[in-house]
């Protein structure tokens, strides 16, 4: 294991060095600053904004859904996660399309409409998954109570 780690660290440092070298050779100092700003901003957006929001959403759902079986909450949370991640990829497309593209074959679809339909689909599938989950739960609960009885 030790030798593997040494090799990996050596390769990693070489990669970092090469990346830095390319950056310095091919970009002006103000452009490099621009890259660093983007990297720091990415960390702040994820660690400082998105993750805390996710925690608050999770806690809020658990508190609000006290009486709801946890499995149902988990399914709903899963649906929200799938929808949110897809939206994260599609919302910039919608915005860019509103700014205009270089030619009509770039971003040719109605992404706003598609996203709305997608959310509707997610809602339907999430609801269906909840129904299936609750039925199974009830079935196994009655089966176990029957076996006890």
């Amino acid at each position, binding site marked *: 294991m030790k030798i593997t780690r040494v090799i990996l660290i050596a*390769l990693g440092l070489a*990669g970092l060095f090469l990346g830095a070298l390319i950056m310095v050779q091919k970009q002006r100092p103000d452009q490099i600053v621009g890259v660093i700003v983007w990297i720091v901003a990415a960390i702040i957006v994820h660690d400082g904004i998105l993750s805390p929001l996710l925690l608050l959403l999770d806690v809020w759902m*658990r508190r609000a859904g006290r009486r709801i079986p*946890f499995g149902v909450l*988990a399914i709903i949370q899963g649906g929200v996660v799938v929808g949110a*991640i897809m939206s994260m990829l599609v919302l910039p497309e919608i915005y860019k399309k509103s700014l205009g593209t*270089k030619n009509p074959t770039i971003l040719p679809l109605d992404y706003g409409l*598609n996203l709305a339909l997608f959310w509707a689909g997610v809602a339907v599938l999430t609801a269906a998954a909840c129904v299936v989950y609750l039925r199974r739960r009830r079935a196994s609960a009655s089966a176990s109570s029957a076996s006890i009885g």
Partner: protein
Amino acid sequence: MRRLLAATQQALAAPPRNPRMAVVVGRLLAIAFLLCFGTGLYSHFLQEPEPWMRFSTVPAQLYQVTQGIHITAGIACFPLILGKLYTIYPQLFQTPPVKSPLHLLERASIALFVGASLVQITIGLLNTYQWYPWKFGFREVHWALSFVVIGSLAIHIAVKLPMIARFWTRNSEGTRELRGETQGGETAPDAAAPVAESAPVGGVTGRIFRWIDGAPSPEPAVSRRGFMTAVGVSTATVVALTAGQSFAALSPFNIFAPRVKGTGPNALPVNRTAKAAQVLDTAVSPDWALTISNGPRTVTLTRAELLALPQTTVELPISCVEGWSQMATWKGVRLRELLNKVGADTSQGLKLTSLEKKGGYRVTQMGPEYAFDASTLVALEVNGDTLDIDHGYPARMIAPGRPGVLQTKWLSKLEVEA
């Protein structure tokens, strides 16, 4: 401060936030990163080959597949990286924040890894619809960051190797301890261990922590399974609904990709229009002729003369660096027949010049393996029609397995290189 960090870490504790999950999602993310890196290197060297490099012209769809994988794997990285970061997020609040200079270095390297990875996939995504809301060069920075990301990945794996080994399989020692099957004592150093905190945090922050603590706690097994399912379904969804721009089998499900197969003039998407390349006049000029030269030997052919030569029909994809691709039927003159007219040798490459006024791909090179391939054409027609001006009228190059930017449109000169 320390108390606040500890309390935050405790508030963030959740069943899926454990080292086993970090290893499981981390593996998938590493595979996606390596796929992107490998296909990215291939694409880079196709565009900027070292003089000794030769590439395969078969299968003709090679680049279509490698670049389709590059973009699709890049899109898959979004749910995977978010899932991975979710599993380790409480680590951000570890106490003490810095234990030693080495620890500081490790934390700094992780910050760089996370930040560079997020930027890499984000600028890559925006590039697929040609949006550049920054002042740095996309190609250069994407190239440089690929080494930063893969380098940081290697260092990260090296640092975490003992942990990765402990949680590698379902039956690894660490995983079993996590399930409570063995007496491991202090287990799961990654998951926020219960903090022995006597004095509660006061003020507004304290109220927030109490609000969080007051929520019903998640059921561990359901929570972990739900997490893995959410990561899996998200990844499958983003891939299924966008990969149709690259892979024909998925094109019926393409509702979110920036490109759609079959759109545009000649049923082909366009990257750079004739207008953008400033060839609207020169491309339709009656004086246009293609010049082919090999040292002093020169042949000049008008479009009518090219059409009078034996015509060949080939099925070749146009495959963009931005990931979209499209199969098309091209008709035109075999390039090697034109090169024979000026006595070119099969070991010689070509310099291609386009009518376009400026742009990084106005002048490009083509290696002999492509120049003398039987399916490489100076194309005059596509999909049964005359080339649209946006697809390179009066004549364009089409060769197997090359990036779209090198399938030069609005050809002007072909010079055999000595």
